[in-house]
């Protein structure tokens, strides 16, 4: 079964508006998602060692339990979230579709050599604003691009509700397409390539 990111939508739109407007001058700000998850954003180069080692570099934090991802409306801006404190607190750092496509091997705290491997939740959290994920990150004069969209999931074994005759609805999943000059058009979510990458 291919591993993909499940999309979770939240009614607390103010949190996602905050995400959409973050920039380094707002480092240190705190916001909460429906008073359930408290987040802080700090201007920090979490991708300092990503190219060479595919790990996230993070400042010294209490023990990180899991990593997950958040996005502003339509997936226009993406953030990694390092969860700590019973999963009720998180440090946010901006990422891009590439970081979703190539899984991280772990995290390393500033000044440490140890690589930690918190669990990765295959989830992406979005505002429930009725706008589907739709965004293209292009590079090299729009010659190459990664495109995010979403697609429905169906469970062929799901039983229909006898009263409504409707099958339970599964959350949508994130779709990542790539347009590479050398490889033409690649749809990673459905290809064995991504499965191999994800399993690597």
């Amino acid at each position, binding site marked *: 079964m291919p591993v993909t990111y499940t999309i979770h939508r939240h009614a607390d739109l103010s949190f996602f508006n905050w995400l959409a407007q973050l*920039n*380094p*001058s707002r*480092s*240190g*700000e*705190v916001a*909460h998602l429906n*008073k359930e998850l*408290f*987040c*802080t954003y*700090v*201007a*920090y*180069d979490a*991708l*300092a060692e*990503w*190219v060479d080692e595919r790990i996230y570099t993070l*400042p*010294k*934090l209490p023990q990180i339990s899991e990593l997950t991802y958040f996005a502003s409306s339509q997936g226009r801006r993406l953030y990694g979230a390092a969860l700590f*404190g019973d999963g*009720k*607190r998180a440090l946010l*750092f*901006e990422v*891009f*579709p*590439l970081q979703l*496509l*190539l899984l991280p091997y772990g995290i390393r705290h*500033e000044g440490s050599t140890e690589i930690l491997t918190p669990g990765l939740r295959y989830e992406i959290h979005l505002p429930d604003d009725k706008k589907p994920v739709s965004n293209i*990150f292009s*590079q*090299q004069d729009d010659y*190459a691009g*990664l495109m995010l969209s979403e697609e429905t999931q169906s469970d062929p074994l799901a039983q229909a509700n006898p009263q409504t005759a409707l099958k339970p609805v599964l959350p949508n999943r994130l779709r990542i397409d*790539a347009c*590479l000059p*050398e*490889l033409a058009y690649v749809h990673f979510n459905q290809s064995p*390539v991504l499965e*191999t*990458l994800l399993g*690597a």
Partner: protein
Amino acid sequence: MLRLLISLLIQLFFRRPAGIAPGQKAQDIDAALERLEEAYCAAHGKRYRRPPARPPQPTFDLAPDLDFSL
């Protein structure tokens, strides 16, 4: 082939967030974590206890004081 593909992907699509310099460190992480904890406690009706401030460290003038005479 797989390594080549990964290398190509990284080469084409890696970018840093706008305004973040390579290797940039957070100057205010302790203060940010304190604010985070304070907000969490306030939302859950708990009293936040600020960690005791560290006593100021004595500072020494490291420049050699060679200007003396017996």
